[in-house]
């Protein structure tokens, strides 16, 4: 995977999940579309939670996560 792709993969996935979640409840008429909307919009929130949890575990976890980091 190229560096550019690795860097932008997650942002694109998150944006796509958000847009899908926003439109699912609006265009889909209730029912399962609402649940899908909640699920898709929870993706960015979960991402924040994971990021904060990793941060609290300290620099070690952060260093593991960024294998190609220049120090």
């Amino acid at each position, binding site marked *: 995977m190229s560096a550019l792709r690795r860097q932008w993969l*997650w942002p694109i996935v998150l*944006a796509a999940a958000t847009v899908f979640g926003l439109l699912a409840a*609006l265009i889909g008429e209730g029912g399962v579309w*609402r649940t899908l909307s*909640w699920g898709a919009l929870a993706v*960015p929130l979960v991402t924040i939670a994971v*990021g904060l949890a990793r941060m609290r575990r300290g620099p070690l976890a*952060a260093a593991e996560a*960024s294998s190609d980091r*220049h120090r």
Partner: protein
Amino acid sequence: MTRRVVRAWVWLHRWSSLICTLFALLLCLTGLPLIFKDELGPDLKLAATTAPPGSASVDSMIARVLAARPGEVVPYLFYDREHPILKVPTAASMTADPASFHYQVFDTRTGLQIEIPQPNEGFLYVMTRLHLDLFGGVPGTLFLGFMGLLLVVAIVSGVVLYGPFTRRLAFGVVRTDGSRWRTWLDLHNLLGIVTLAWFGVVSFTGVINTLAAPIELAWQANQLVEMAAQAKPAEIEGQRASTDAVLRDVRAAVPGMNVMTVAFPGTPFATPSHVAIFLTGNTPITSRILKPALADASTGQVVSVRDMPWYATALFMSQPLHFGDYGGLPLKIIWALLDIATIVVLISGLYLWWAKRPQRGADAEAGSPAS
């Protein structure tokens, strides 16, 4: 990206953000309780009844309203999307400022009056006005729209900068082993990129919402005039069709839709000799798109029904996407959490600028972009 290009984007991001940050913070903070407007609003204490919504006489409600407020007029009728209630405002004149309206609320099934506080006072009203126009009317709204536009510029330039600023990091890493500034930069980047699409959509639709007044003016000047010209008004001296008859006629003429708002002759949304009725559909989208109908004020006959123009539809579509009120309580909670995340983005952005201010130019920090 060359160093010069990055610097130009940094400049754009810094200044577009700095100018609008205070107002963006205000909008995020006042918007937070507004997400739960329905939940925080007054308890309607609706009685249990088998009567279908809309079965009580609207004319008798209007008569009661006017008897309680002698000397005033009823410019509009407002139905509710969620509840079987009718809000009947009274004012000194047909063209009075809506902020001066006095409201009386009725159950549309039983015709009984419901005692609730005036919607234009209290905590939620103050939050609404601060969010909508800073108590400054249309100029205030347009000013906030301009701030929103700067916020959109800040979001776009922020995404552009996300590239060079996080190139050496795995996604979502917040470094805690360096300076506090760097930790906050990583947090700013993480929260910013994660909430990007939501914040972008809410900001952009908010900007469109600030154009409501010009959009209404355009509709009044073009479409309303054309609709009124479709049939010569009967203008029978002193005769005014009953509102119940008008509502019955328009419901028959436009089946499957609900009446949301009625504008009486003399208001800016009707003509001197027509009643304007605004209808909506039943799905999440169509319940937001108003369809206007005009009825002759003397005979009550429906003379014109037509869809709103594209620019009005754009306004209607941008409302749910800004309010987040179309997917139940879980969507509202998600809206609130994302709003809180963006508040952190705004405050951390302000901190990043403030903390770096004295030594700007000598940014040998680890977080600065590689060229």
